[in-house]
């Protein structure tokens, strides 16, 4: 593994994460119709990407790590897609 990022990068990342936290709370009070949840989850994904890329330093690691991470998300996607293809197409609310 390469040298981890500098202190400045960690602090900048923390500031960005706290900014995104404030943003997600602010956006929740704006009526975006069906897109409030989309906005909230998009911000969560952005925060997760920052944590994985900078704090967990995935870029400096072995390519094998991407296989483990990718496999986890691949099977998560299968679970959600197959399950929701049932729930979303049922007649009940």
């Amino acid at each position, binding site marked *: 593994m390469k040298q981890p990022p500098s*202190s400045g990068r960690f602090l900048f990342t923390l500031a960005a994460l706290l900014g995104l936290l404030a943003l997600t709370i602010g956006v*929740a009070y*704006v009526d975006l119709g069906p897109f409030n949840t989309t906005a909230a989850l998009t911000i969560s994904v952005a*925060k997760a990407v920052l944590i994985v890329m900078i704090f967990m330093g995935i870029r400096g690691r072995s390519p*094998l790590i991407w296989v483990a991470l990718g496999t986890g998300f691949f099977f*998560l996607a299968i679970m959600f897609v197959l399950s929701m293809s049932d729930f979303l197409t049922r007649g009940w609310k």
Partner: protein
Amino acid sequence: MSDPAIAHAAQFDDATQQREAATFGMWVFLATEILFFGGMFLGYAAYRRAYPAAFAAASRHTLLAFGATNTAVLLISSAMMAFAVRAAREKRRAALAWRLFATAALGLLFLGIKGFEYAREFSEHLLPGASFHFDPPYTNQAEMFFYLYFLMTGVHAIHVTIGVVLIAIFGSRAWHTDAFARNDTAVDLLGLYWHFVDIVWVFLFPLIYLVERHS
């Protein structure tokens, strides 16, 4: 790249291979954790889709100020952990110990705030069970929201507790021995676990506290 100063076990060619095997093992564990939490998120998604109005009403009974504070506490603890991992890499033993203790303290603060929330919700009869109370018409659906709330935050809190205990033990070892100055892999892996726990909360936070807050 191999550091001859780091001892490696008999099954590895060198210390680099040992480090990569250990790191890969932690990421595989985290992949199983994604699926472990994923099942609960799927349950949440299915019920929220079925009862959107009830979930919005129930979410407004959660304590947003405490949830937001806790999110900030966990994000700061993650940054502190990243600094600890770097101290281990640079073989700065005292800095490593203090940064680990600070991370553990932030984890404890998170658990304290969460415990306060649980106490408030318990006294407001929001804990699912015989004494659960929520104004009609959403009583049963709100109970499902709070069942998912206590399950998901509870399982997450168990993860935080395990993290705090491990981080405190590591901090103590860093303070008293030079084990991590010789080999910092374990600190790196503990850091990965802690960041993962942080990421789970990043997704829990809006799904619990911010459902349709605008209406």
